[in-house]
């Protein structure tokens, strides 16, 4: 039963999404209701599956004896799946209003829903082959979403995206093969599956492969220098940028990295090796690089994209600490950053949708016209800065705790980088709020009089996100404890 349920959760949205584009619907509301229904159904299914998962692997089919597509729910899977399943319905709701005056909406939503299924597939994948397959599929399914505007730059962006992601996957492939060969099993086992006697003889080779694999997967996690696609992909409609390029896709990359690091290669095997040092360096560079680019960027969405880049590297920082605490911190930030960033993206999206303004210097005084939106934006900005009482601080705290505890020479540098990026975050987020709320004495508010806050379909998700943020920020203990149990091995 459970097996079928799992498979259904992944396959159902992919199948049920097709009618959205194929059927000729009489009215828009019909297919909107249908889409939302499918998404809600999938979320319900996945939560049900999480609620009573038996922890068994369920094989869908086999490529070969040792190559099988199998689904399994464990702690990590449930974190990611729960997160995604919570966000998707809200994002879809938001998307309805955002896309309201764009073309080819049915096609867009078809792929949007399909992506849900594929993402869940990544979450539930029980072995590395499955994960790899869904990872590749994710690329192809999200491609049309980026291409959707069909403008020149959208095409260019999608080409870049494709090149980066598939190229990264090509290197991830190497790691997969190695795990298939050197691992005792291809399934994910906390603590790693390395076949120790076979490994010991050729440790360095394995480390090289690990680093290559890490780079491969880190393309989706937008690690420097492989993150170039992320800002470019900002041309996509905001629901895509917000949900996919702040949560689903990029977090899938981080998720994959957690899998290979902690569940395949094994953190104990990697801790203290040169590989860890190398990766730490890259991650720290990314943390600072992303923020400073965000500071220079004047296009709102691209600015947020760069900030995503650096925030993802917070997660990777936790990952490469190679300790349970580190993984806890990483998971923590994975969850919290999802809410903070999707919230800020939605605010920006609301601005773009209501006013067609895309650049920082255009939003002067809008705070008086769209108070709700910009208040929420400010809150999410404060959260990203890591003001205590909001989730950003919690994840920073856990990451820093892990870093200091790991006593790795570079870890302190990492903590410092976190704070530097927090400072830069403050500047590039707060400067937006300032422009919006304090345009200066000589600014006449009639210029923005025409603009309003968006409709309920946009505001409801935003409100929910804010509430969630405060709840997590003020009382994160249960969640963090759960994550800690997940992260143990």
């Amino acid at each position: 039963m459970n097996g079928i349920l799992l498979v259904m959760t992944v396959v159902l949205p992919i199948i049920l999404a097709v009618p959205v584009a194929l059927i000729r619907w009489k009215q828009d509301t019909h297919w909107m209701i249908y889409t939302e229904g499918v998404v809600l159904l999938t979320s319900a299914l996945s939560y049900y599956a999480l609620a009573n998962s038996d922890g068994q692997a369920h094989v869908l089919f086999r490529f070969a004896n040792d190559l099988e597509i199998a689904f399994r729910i464990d702690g990590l899977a449930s974190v990611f799946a729960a997160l995604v399943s919570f966000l998707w319905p809200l994002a879809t709701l938001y998307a309805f209003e955002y896309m309201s005056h764009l073309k080819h909406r049915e096609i867009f939503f078809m792929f949007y829903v399909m992506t849900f299924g594929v993402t869940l597939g990544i979450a539930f994948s029980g072995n590395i082959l499955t994960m790899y397959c869904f990872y590749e599929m994710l690329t192809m399914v999200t491609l049309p979403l980026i291409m959707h505007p069909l403008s020149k730059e959208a095409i260019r962006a999608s080409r870049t995206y494709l090149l980066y992601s598939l190229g990264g996957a090509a290197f991830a492939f190497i790691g997969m093969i190695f795990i298939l060969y050197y691992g005792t099993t291809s399934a994910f086992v906390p603590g790693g599956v390395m076949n120790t006697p076979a490994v010991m003889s050729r440790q360095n080779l394995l480390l090289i492969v690990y680093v290559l694999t890490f780079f491969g997967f880190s393309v989706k996690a937008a690690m420097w220098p492989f993150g170039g696609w992320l800002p470019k992909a900002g041309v996509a409609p905001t629901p895509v940028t917000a949900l996919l390029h702040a949560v689903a896709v990029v977090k899938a990359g981080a998720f994959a990295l957690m899998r290979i690091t902690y569940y395949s290669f094994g953190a104990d095997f990697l801790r203290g090796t040169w590989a860890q040092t190398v990766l730490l360096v890259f991650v720290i560079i990314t943390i600072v690089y992303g923020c400073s680019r965000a500071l220079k960027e004047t296009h709102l969405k691209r600015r947020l994209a760069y900030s995503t880049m650096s925030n993802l590297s917070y997660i990777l920082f936790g990952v490469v600490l190679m300790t349970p605490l580190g993984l806890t911190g990483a998971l923590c930030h994975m969850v919290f950053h999802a809410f903070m960033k999707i919230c800020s993206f939605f605010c920006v999206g609301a601005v773009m949708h209501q006013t067609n303004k895309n650049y920082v210097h255009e939003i002067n005084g809008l705070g008086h016209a769209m108070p709700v939106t910009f208040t929420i934006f400010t809150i999410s900005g404060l959260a990203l800065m890591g003001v205590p009482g909001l989730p950003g601080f919690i994840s920073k705290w856990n990451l820093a705790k892990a870093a200091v505890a790991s006593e790795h020479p570079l870890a302190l540098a990492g903590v410092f980088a976190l704070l530097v990026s927090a400072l830069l975050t403050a500047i590039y987020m707060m400067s937006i709020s300032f422009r919006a709320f304090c345009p200066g004495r000589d600014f006449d508010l009639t210029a923005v009089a025409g603009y309003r806050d968006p409709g309920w379909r946009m505001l409801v998700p935003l409100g929910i996100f804010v509430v969630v943020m405060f709840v997590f920020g003020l009382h994160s203990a249960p969640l963090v404890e759960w994550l800690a149990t997940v992260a143990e091995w």
Partner: protein
Amino acid sequence: MIPMTAMAPFHLLTLGEGLEISFATDGISLLFMGITTVIWILVGIYAVAYMKHEERPGQFFAAYALLYVILLGLDLSANLITMYLCYELMTLVSMLLVVHNHSREAIMATLKYLFYSLCGAYLGLFGIFYLNHYCVDLNFGSTGRLDLSALAGHEQTLLIVVFLMLIGFGTKAGMFPLHGWLPSAHPVAPSPASAVLSAIIVKSGVLATIRTVYNIIGADFLRGTWVQTAWMSLTLLTVFMGSMLAYREPVIKKRFAYSTVSQVSYILFGLSLLQEQAFTGALLHVWFHAMIKCGLFLCAGVFVVICGCKRVDELHGIGRKMPVFLACYTCFALALIGIPPTSGFVSKWQLALGALDADVGFFSWFGPVVLLVSALLTAGYLLPIAMRGFFPGEVSCSEQVGLLEKKEPPLLMLIPIVILAIAAVMSGIFPTGLINVCRNLAAYFL
């Protein structure tokens, strides 16, 4: 009498594990709460009258009240986390006060203020992250909470971290090198705001430093290390530099701001000596400087909104028009310089004595010398206003002043100033009670 040790803390809520938000009262917190409350009431009265001249008084008072609550939270916080929480919130809310009139330079100054404060706060946070691992817990205790067994081998790192924390919290206290926000934030803020800024907000930096050094790390750990030396030299440098800049600064509020920079570093110097009497002096100076500088800024407010003067040389002959007011100003000036028997003298005397019998070698005599020099400079940049105010000399009063009719400022503005002036002088004449309190506190820490 004031309880020394912290009572059983009141636990509000838990952000995450290891992140308790809890409050408790101990001597230090009561001391700071006291001064905060006094200042807040007086400035509140003053502001009622003052804000008639500004727009959006509602917003101002909202932020003002909120800030008071947060400051109380800061004073009462029972562990570093709570303190940091209030510290950040304080920054954000006081930002609202600074930005209050939305002029371009106000916004710029606010961003600068935000940037500096966050720099400081994050340096502090860095330290907190680090200490969290090497401390038993982050609750405030008498002799430090370091977990020496865990610390073994990381002392040097810890020292670096502590130094960073000192600089970080020193930012709010306007200590070199991160003092740059004061002179730009004060002039743009409404005068009540700048009054509380330099009377209380900067003191929160001092409070944070005390908490870190004396409650968490413990004075003994730092005594004689390079950190102490570096700290002392930074403070002395700030003392001198601050008064020097103030001396060369024509704009009134900027001049007072620079003077704040130097005066607060008196306090930090006292703390950096890690010596009982110096500590007493520092605590005293917290009180006295709060009252005096608050008063000065209130005066500045009068200068600005009543006389419409921004620069010093526009004030000639002001004493002819509003003698009582200028008399109060003179009291403040004398107190800040430290002319006996005013309050400033008492605290500086304690500081000097503490410096002299602290065994910090070179600094034990160099410190007092610098204090003296800066006192002279203080005289140099405060007194001329009073003198030219009363005795404009053959050049008759400046044109702005000339336009004024002979009239004191409105009562609501005058009364707080007078009260503060009297307090500033009297507390110098009868300092015993306060000194005892501070002595006990010092004895409790050292």
